[in-house]
């Protein structure tokens, strides 16, 4: 018999009696039972969260405020005192078409849009292909899932280095494949038209596994009797998909949409590696792969315009904040920390 069972069998009066004798500490829930004198408890509680809060304070909370302040200065490393106040000049510069910021937003929107559409279609398709069934076991399913998921955990730089070879116009496999299919070869990373699609292919390969895992989790939540009933009724596959699968998947789909969008907006390592970051910032032929994340990096750490980079960061902050808040609102039912 475990201690919990034992507790239940006690009569209320017995518990009350123990309360009076001071034995209550042990019989109540753990939250109360860890209680000591009030002041000591509060100090201990704060002390326990302090290490985490200190790190977050220095590297998250303080910077989140600093970035806003910096964006109003022509900031240099000597500090605020030695930096010239800029007012909103840097935000005005963002809107200037020649600054390249607006172009970076366009590039980001193009990249995010394609990644989103492709991730939803291919991710769901792959999950459907990789789904398990209680009635029929498919051998090797775990292996196939692992192969699809593996790229997601590999380092971005290491894999993009390989994709650079694949996209080589002369000897790369991508063009070898096109030639074999009787199609004209493409300049890929050297072409302002094809550099971004090359980044998309690289990152779809790398990130699809994540969406597949989420969709698989969603698919596994569809009650099997619902599916069986539909199959017994000889409902067509397309009807089953539209009427049963999609409604069940809608919460997962929303999560995939938001996470894919955020991830796409934050992409850095692969773009840097694919389109010549190591030769001074990166961003592709005529900035064709300069997303806002790359633009932010280049502003601050290639051109050393920290204040201007901070203004870019504030805009990204706001955009990502909206997305995160939407995600939280939508995903409230599914989050674990409530």
């Amino acid at each position, binding site marked *: 018999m*475990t*201690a919990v069972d034992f507790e239940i069998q006690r009569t209320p009066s017995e518990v009350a009696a123990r309360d009076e004798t001071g034995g209550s500490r042990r019989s*109540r829930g*753990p939250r109360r*039972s860890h209680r000591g004198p009030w002041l000591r*408890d*509060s100090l*201990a509680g*704060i002390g*326990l*969260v302090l*290490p985490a809060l200190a*790190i*977050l304070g*220095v*590297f998250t*909370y*303080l*910077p*989140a405020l600093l970035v806003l302040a910096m964006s109003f200065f022509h900031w240099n490393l000597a500090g605020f005192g030695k930096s010239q106040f800029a007012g909103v000049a840097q935000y005005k510069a963002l809107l200037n078409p020649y600054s390249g910021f607006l172009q970076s937003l366009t590039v980001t929107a193009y990249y995010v849009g394609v990644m989103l559409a492709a991730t939803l279609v291919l991710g769901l398709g792959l999950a459907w*292909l*990789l789904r398990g069934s209680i009635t029929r076991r*498919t051998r090797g399913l775990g292996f*196939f*899932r692992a*192969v*699809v*998921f*593996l790229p997601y*955990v*590999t*380092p971005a*730089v*290491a894999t993009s*280095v*390989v*994709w*650079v070879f*694949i996209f080589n116009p*002369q000897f790369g*496999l991508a063009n070898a494949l096109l030639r074999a299919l009787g199609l004209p070869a493409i300049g890929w990373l050297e072409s302002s038209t094809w550099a971004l699609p090359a980044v998309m292919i690289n990152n779809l*390969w790398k990130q699809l596994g994540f969406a597949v*895992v*989420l969709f698989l989790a969603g698919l596994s939540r569809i009650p099997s009797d619902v599916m069986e009933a539909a199959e017994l009724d000889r409902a067509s596959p397309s009807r089953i998909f539209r009427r049963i699968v999609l409604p069940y998947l809608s919460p997962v789909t929303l999560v995939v949409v938001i996470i894919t969008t*955020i991830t796409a907006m934050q992409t*850095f*390592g692969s773009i*840097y*590696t694919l389109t010549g970051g190591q030769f001074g910032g990166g961003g592709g032929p005529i900035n064709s792969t300069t997303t806002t994340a790359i633009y*932010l*990096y280049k502003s*601050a750490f290639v051109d050393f315009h*920290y204040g201007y980079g*901070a203004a870019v960061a504030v805009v990204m902050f706001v955009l*990502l904040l909206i997305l995160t808040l939407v995600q939280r609102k939508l*995903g409230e039912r*599914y*989050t*674990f*920390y409530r």
Partner: protein
Amino acid sequence: MQGLARRLKEGGRYALLIAVAACFGFPLYWAVVLSVARRSQVFTLPPHLLPAFDLHPFERMLSAQPWGLYFLNTVVITSVTIILVLVTGALAGYALALREFRGREVVFGLLLAALLVPAEATLIPDYVIAARLHLLNTLPGQILPFGANVFAIFLFRQFFKTLPPSLWEVSQLDRVGWWRYLWRVAVPMAKPAVVTVSLLTFATQWSAFQWPLIITQGPAVRPVEVGLSFFQGFDGTHWREVAGAAIFTMLPIIVVFIFAQRYFIEAVAGQTGEK
């Protein structure tokens, strides 16, 4: 007849599965082929798709850069970060789950707020702060900013909340204080949380690129991914050597993935609250 139709359908599904696996596995396979190819087999059309097992490119790659040092740096950065995240996460998670103290709600709100701040927003100020704290071009500079993780804190809190109260009672009978209870009983009971947090921290720190790219200068504290990026910049035309280096840097993650695949996938999916 129905049996045949079903078999055909199963066969078609397998064909499709194999095609998908080939697409996803190919780039990594290709990296292996390139890294052991003979010189005459690299810049040729049509490309050689089978490995030749020439180990010279590997030897040249290993002697071209201080990879051992880069590896050591990454191992130190990754392992110390894992320990830090576990300790800060377990302490804060325990406080939030099992202790009542003034300001607990405030702390909770602060932690939730931290989840709203993206890395892009803090990148530039973090660099400035790291400079002020003399953390530029150091190993601690690559560890400390990642030493606390809100996801880890909430995960520990969630596990600690589900611990049966009887455990604490028994521990008290044995005169075990809360500190020992936390480390000897609660944390071992929250093993899934420890595994998840360790794997996620391992994957992100081993792959870390942008932050170390910004704050490291010479090779002394450079991690592998940054080392690889520089190697690609200088020797990008040496395909076999660069491919070998890429394999070399991702091998630890692949090995861990093979052995802890299920936990890895659960950890990544669990991060979104979708389990």
